[in-house]
C-alpha cells in the first residue's frame, strides 16, 4: 500500500475495503485493473479450450472427444479470446492510461464505467454455463456452430446458442458503453492545451476503436436478435422456408465482423509507437501520418466485409470491388509499418521485454498482413477459403498482432501500475518461447491449409499428420510459455525493485509524470500542456 492510499483512509474519498471496493468502484484505475485481470483469466480459459482441440488434432482419427464437443470448443475458444480476452485487455489499458495520458482526473462517466465492467462476468458465465449444464444432462452443450454462428446451422443448433446470443448482447452493451465513455472522456476531459493533434497515439487508436464499436456492435446485436426471433418467435429473417435468406446473415455478421478485427488491433497499433519511441530513444516518426492512417483504415474497414464470403456466390463485379477495396487497406497499413520502422531507424535501441514484444509483433503481424493480401485475391480465395490457411492467417494477425502487442503493453505499463519493475529475465524467456512456439504452431497451418485441410473438422486425412503434430506440439509449448507470463505478472504485483515515475528512460508523456504506482486520484489539478 502506498502512502497516498494510507493518507486517503478515513477521508470521504477513501475506497471501501474488500469486495465492496471492487463491486462499487468508479475509479478508472480500479476498473482498468479489473478489466485486465478478467482478461488474463479468460485468456487462460480460452487457451485451455484450444489445447484440448490441439490434443485431439495431434493425430488423425478421433481420440479424445466427440465431434460435438470439438465443435463447441473451437467456437467458444474464439468468442472467449476475442470478446473476453483481447477486447477487455484493450479496454483495461484504456481505463488505466487514457485519463493519465490526457491529464484527466478520471473517466467522464465513472458509474457507467463500473457497469460496463460488471456486465462482463455474467456474459462469461452465460457463454460457458452450457458446458456445465451438459454435464448434468441439461441441453447439448455450448454453442457448436463456430464463432460466426452462420444461419441456417445456427437456427437449428441447441440451447447453447441461445446462451451465446444473450452473452453477446451483454458483451455488446458493455463494449458500447465503454466506448461512449472513452469518446466523451477524450472529447471533454483533455487537459488545457492538449489539442487533438497532440493526443498520444494510443488515445487516437482507442478513439477510432470506440467510434467503430459504437457503429458496428449494434449491427451484430441486431443480427443475433433476428437469429433469436427466428429460433423462437417464428420470424423468417434467415429461414428460406418463410422467404428469408441465410446469406443475409453472413452479410450482417461480417458487416460487424470485419471492423471487429481492426477494433481489437487499433489499441495495439496505438501503443506500439509509444514503446518503439521509448526504447529507440527517439520521438515518434510520422505522428500525423499515423493518425490519418488510423482514420483511413477505420473508414475502409466498414466497406470491405465481403471478402469473408467471396465463395457465397457473389457477382464478378462485387468480387472485384471487395478484392480491390480490401487490398487498398494495405496502403494505410504500410504507412503504419513504415512509421514504426522509421521510429526505430538509427535509434539508440535497447531490447527490454516490452520492446522485444513490440518488435516481434511487427514482424509476425507483417506476415499476417501479407497472407491477408493473398486471401483477398478473389481468384485465390476460392482455394484458400475455409482452409487452415485462413486459421494461420488470422492467428498471425490476432495472436501476434493482438495478444503479443497487448503483452508488450503489459510489460511496458505494469511497472507504472504496480510500482515494481518486472522480472526482465523471465519476461525475455516468455518472449522467446512465445515467439518460437507461436511460429511452430501456426506456420505449419499455412502449408496444410494450402494442401487442402479444411478448418473446423476434428479429423483429417493422413497426409496432414506430421504438420498437425508439429502444430500441436507448438501449441502446448505456447500454452506453457504463458504460465511464465502469469508468473511475471504476479511477481511484479507482489514486489520487485521499485519503479521510478519515469519507468523507462526514453518514455515521454503525462503518464510518466505521476508516481509509480499512481495515487488513487491523479490530476485533480489539471496539468497544462505547453507548445
Amino acid at each position, binding site marked *: 500500500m502506498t502512502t497516498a492510499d494510507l493518507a486517503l483512509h478515513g477521508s470521504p474519498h477513501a475506497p471501501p475495503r474488500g469486495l465492496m471496493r471492487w463491486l462499487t468502484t468508479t475509479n478508472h484505475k480500479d476498473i482498468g485493473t479489473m478489466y485486465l485481470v478478467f482478461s488474463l483469466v479468460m485468456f487462460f480459459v480460452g487457451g485451455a479450450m484450444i489445447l484440448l482441440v490441439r490434443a485431439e488434432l495431434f493425430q488423425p482419427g478421433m481420440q479424445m472427444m466427440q465431434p460435438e464437443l470439438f465443435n463447441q470448443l473451437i467456437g467458444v475458444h474464439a468468442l472467449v479470446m476475442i470478446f473476453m480476452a483481447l477486447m477487455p485487455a484493450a479496454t483495461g489499458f484504456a481505463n488505466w492510461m487514457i485519463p493519465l495520458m490526457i491529464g484527466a482526473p478520471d473517466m467522464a462517466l465513472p458509474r457507467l464505467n463500473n457497469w460496463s465492467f460488471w456486465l462482463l462476468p455474467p456474459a462469461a458465465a452465460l457463454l460457458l454455463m452450457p458446458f456445465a449444464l451438459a454435464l448434468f444432462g441439461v441441453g447439448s452443450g455450448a454453442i457448436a456452430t463456430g464463432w460466426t454462428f452462420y444461419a441456417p446451422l445456427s437456427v437449428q443448433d441447441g440451447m447453447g446458442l441461445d446462451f451465446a446470443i444473450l452473452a453477446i448482447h451483454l458483451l455488446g452493451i458493455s463494449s458500447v458503453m465503454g466506448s461512449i465513455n472513452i*469518446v*466523451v472522456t477524450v472529447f471533454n476531459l483533455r487537459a488545457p492545451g492538449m489539442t487533438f493533434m497532440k493526443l498520444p497515439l494510443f488515445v487516437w487508436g482507442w478513439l477510432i476503436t470506440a467510434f467503430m464499436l459504437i*457503429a458496428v456492435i449494434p*449491427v451484430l446485436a*441486431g443480427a443475433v436478435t*433476428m437469429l433469436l426471433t427466428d429460433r423462437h418467435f417464428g420470424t423468417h429473417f434467415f429461414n428460406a*422456408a418463410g422467404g428469408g*435468406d441465410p446469406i443475409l446473415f453472413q452479410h450482417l455478421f461480417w458487416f460487424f465482423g470485419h471492423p471487429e478485427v481492426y477494433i481489437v488491433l487499433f489499441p495495439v497499433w496505438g501503443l506500439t509507437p509509444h514503446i518503439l519511441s521509448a526504447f529507440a530513444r527517439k520521438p515518434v516518426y510520422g505522428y500525423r501520418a499515423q493518425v490519418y492512417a488510423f482514420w483511413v483504415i477505420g473508414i475502409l474497414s466498414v466497406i470491405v466485409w465481403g471478402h469473408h464470403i467471396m465463395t457465397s*456466390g457473389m457477382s464478378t463485379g462485387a468480387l472485384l470491388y471487395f478484392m480491390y477495396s480490401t487490398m487498398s487497406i494495405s496502403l494505410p497499413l504500410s504507412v503504419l509499418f513504415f512509421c514504426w520502422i522509421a521510429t526505430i531507424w538509427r535509434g539508440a535501441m535497447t531490447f527490454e521485454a516490452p520492446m522485444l514484444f513490440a518488435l516481434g509483433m511487427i514482424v509476425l503481424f507483417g506476415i499476417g498482413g501479407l497472407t491477408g493480401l493473398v486471401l483477398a485475391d478473389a481468384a485465390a480465395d476460392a482455394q484458400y477459403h475455409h482452409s487452415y490457411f485462413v486459421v494461420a492467417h488470422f492467428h498471425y494477425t490476432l495472436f501476434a498482432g493482438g495478444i503479443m502487442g497487448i503483452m508488450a503493453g503489459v510489460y511496458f505499463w505494469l511497472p507504472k501500475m504496480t510500482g515494481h519493475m518486472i522480472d526482465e529475465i523471465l519476461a525475455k524467456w516468455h518472449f522467446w518461447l512465445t515467439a518460437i512456439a507461436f511460429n511452430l504452431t501456426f506456420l505449419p497451418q499455412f502449408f496444410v491449409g494450402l494442401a487442402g485441410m479444411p478448418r473446423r473438422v476434428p479429423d483429417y486425412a493422413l497426409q496432414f499428420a506430421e504438420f498437425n503434430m508439429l502444430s500441436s506440439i507448438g501449441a502446448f509449448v505456447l500454452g506453457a510459455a504463458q504460465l511464465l507470463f502469469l508468473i511475471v505478472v504476479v511477481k511484479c504485483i507482489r514486489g520487485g525493485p521499485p519503479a521510478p515515475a519515469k519507468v523507462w528512460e526514453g518514455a515521454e508523456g503525462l503518464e510518466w509524470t505521476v508516481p509509480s504506482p499512481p495515487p488513487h486520484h491523479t490530476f485533480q489539478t489539471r496539468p497544462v500542456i505547453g507548445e
Partner: protein
Amino acid sequence: MDGHQRRANLAFALKLGLAAFAMFGFAYALVPLYDVFCQATGLNGRTGQTKAISAPSVVDARWVTVEFNGDVMPGLPWRFEPRLHKLRAHPGQATTAWYRVKNLADRPLGGRAVPSVTPPLAARYFAKLECFCFSRQRLNAGEEREMPVTFIISRDLPAEVSTLTLSYAFFPSETTTLVRGEKP
C-alpha cells in the same frame, strides 16, 4: 467535476447512445435493402423478379443444360427427387420437368419448396411459368405424387452460361405443426 462539465458529458454520451440505437435499427433496415438489392440484380439465385421473357415463339438454336436437384430439410419425413437429373433445353422454349415426392410419415404433412438457381447471375434469366413451389404442398400419409415445373430460359441468357442448376429445398410448412397438434 463541476455540474456544467457533468451535464456536457451526459449530453454527449446520450447522443452517442442514440447513434448506437440508430445502428441497431440500421441492421434491420439492411434486411429489406438487401432483398431489394438481390431482386434487382438477380444475385443470390433469386428468381422472383425475372426479366421479361422474349416471345416464346422465337427459340434459340443453342442448347442449355438444366440440372435438377431436390433436398428435404430436417423435420419433414419426405422423399423428394427429380425424375430426370438433367435435360437440355433451348432458350425461349417452354420446358416441363417433373419431381417425385412421397410422404414417408403415417400422418398428413405440409411442406413448401424453396427454389434457387445456380449460377446466381443466371437466375434472372430463368422464369418458372408453373411450379409446385408456387403453393404449399400437402400430402396424406404415405401419399406419392408427381409435380411439374414449367420454365422458360430467356434468350438474353449470357452466352458463357451453358449449364443451369435448379435446386429445391423442401421445408416443413406451418401446417405441419398444426397437424402435429391435431394428432392426439
